[in-house]
């Protein structure tokens, strides 16, 4: 059993100059066989493993990761958490995730720095204003704590916003979810990793899965860069790399992998204490505790596996935000990076069984996966453990694409991709 983090352990370790902290997770060698294997140690994969062990008592399981844990999109996003989507099925899963975030630091005994600072989605055209009013009504029916706010209120919440009614895209109002916010993305991955490891899950890094082995219609194991591993249940949670991996099991995916970029500015004094998303002009912004402005925009419009995006996309995003927040125009940007996001046709995720027995897939989170990590892991673990979709996961099955039962969230995404 791991010792708990607390004010007392902090004080105790301070006495020893912090030299005696134990490792947060082990680095085990892969065993020859597991009851279940999760491929991909990002937030969703780690959360899945954690809930499999905790809620379903499956502890003889492993997570395989080709790089380091949390090194993919989990460590590359802009950490925004909200649940104000349009469709009921989306609201259910994103709200489950958001509410789990509220107690996550206590649950994991790891400070994920969840900060419900409020998410403000600007309406900068008449059309957008109406679209968000529709979402607001849908969300009120679902019982979400969200409301429309007036331009004057927007200015009160974000004093640095450009409130000139004569600019190209004036602020006509905003859709506000006060319980939304941000969390520390790495801490979410590390917290779940530490929690899963404490429950006996083997987290195996630097172990790339090169193929899924089938015997007839069943999964029997995995080929990896560190040898073969036998298992009857495989959960694939590999985001942008899901198509190529699923293909080794003969499953074709309705996914395209695109590059989404983000960037941060030099740190400045606090200027913005909530998250602002501006769909019409394509950009979103928040300020980290270090003072950096964290900025994200839209995806590049073509397939990409290189984790490096194009300059025009960044330029477009920054142009938009300078128009919306004129005071940031002379800030220098410190870092920029790209992640490979897995886009589905309806911009909703896939949490599903497949035609192959024992093969499960959780992907398609596209540009908005971070906010869903706890909920996604929770329902995917349940799906794997019981070999049937969890009630909240059921609408997100792969079968929806053949049945025409889409969950269209392309208009509810904060930024159209």
């Amino acid at each position, binding site marked *: 059993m791991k010792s708990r983090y607390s004010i007392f352990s902090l004080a105790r370790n301070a006495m020893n100059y912090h030299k005696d902290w134990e490792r947060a997770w082990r680095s085990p060698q892969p065993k020859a066989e597991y009851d279940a294997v999760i491929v991909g140690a990002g937030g969703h994969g780690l959360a899945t493993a954690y809930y499999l062990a905790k809620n379903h008592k499956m502890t003889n399981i492993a997570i395989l990761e080709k790089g380091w844990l949390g090194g993919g999109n989990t460590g590359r996003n802009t950490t925004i958490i909200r649940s104000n989507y349009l469709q009921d099925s989306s609201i259910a899963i994103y709200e489950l995730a958001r509410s789990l975030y509220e107690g996550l630091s206590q649950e994991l005994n790891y400070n994920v720095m969840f900060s419900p600072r409020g998410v403000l989605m600007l309406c900068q055209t008449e059309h957008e204003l109406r679209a968000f009013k529709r979402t607001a009504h849908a969300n009120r029916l679902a019982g979400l704590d969200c409301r429309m706010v007036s331009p004057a209120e927007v200015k009160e919440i974000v004093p640095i916003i450009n409130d000139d009614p004569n600019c190209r895209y004036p602020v006509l109002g905003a859709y506000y979810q006060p319980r939304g916010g941000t969390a520390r993305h790495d801490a979410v991955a590390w917290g779940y990793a530490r929690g899963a490891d404490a429950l006996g899950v083997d987290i195996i890094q630097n172990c790339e899965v090169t193929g899924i082995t089938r015997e007839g219609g069943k999964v029997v194991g995995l080929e990896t860069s560190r040898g073969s591993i036998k298992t009857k249940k495989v959960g694939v949670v590999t985001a942008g790399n899901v*198509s190529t991996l699923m*293909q080794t099991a003969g499953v*074709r995916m*309705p996914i395209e992998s695109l590059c989404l970029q983000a960037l941060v500015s030099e740190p400045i004094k606090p200027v913005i204490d909530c998250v602002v998303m501006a769909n019409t002009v394509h950009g979103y912004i928040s300020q980290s505790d270090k003072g950096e402005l964290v900025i994200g925009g839209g995806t590049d419009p073509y*397939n990409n596996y*290189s984790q490096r995006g194009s300059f025009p996309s960044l330029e477009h995003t920054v142009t938009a935000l300078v128009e919306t927040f004129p005071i940031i125009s002379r800030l220098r940007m410190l870092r920029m990076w790209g992640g490979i996001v897995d886009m589905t046709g309806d911009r909703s995720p896939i949490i599903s069984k497949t035609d192959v027995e024992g093969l499960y897939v959780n992907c398609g989170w596209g540009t908005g996966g971070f906010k869903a990590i706890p909920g996604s892991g929770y329902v995917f673990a349940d799906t794997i453990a019981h070999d049937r979709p969890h009630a909240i996961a059921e609408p997100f099955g792969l079968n929806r694409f053949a049945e025409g039962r889409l969950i269209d969230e392309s208009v509810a995404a904060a930024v159209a991709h």
Partner: protein
Amino acid sequence: MLVVHCPVCGAEGDETDFHGGGQAHVRRPATHDPANVSDEAQRDYLFIRHNPKGLHFERWRCDRGCGKWFHAARDTVTMEFKAFYGISELPPREVMEQATGEWATYFKDRLKAEAKS
């Protein structure tokens, strides 16, 4: 930044002068046999996509030039264009031969079908 070349009008420019149009060579099943389109065939047409890590074939449009659609072969890891070719054409033979996975199967079937007709 991608530098794109239009095989129709000969214009060359960066990606902002062009518009990426997604996977190439997608065939609409209803065009060929409108009476017999299964749910699965329609799903494949609308949603299932080749998503290779490596050589990919896509459609582009010459937005600020001639406005025509055309095809391109591009590597999704190095971002390098291997060929630009017309909207009703198949890629050059040497590029087709470099295709892997689903694309290799697709071109093999396509060439077989064309040899027959």
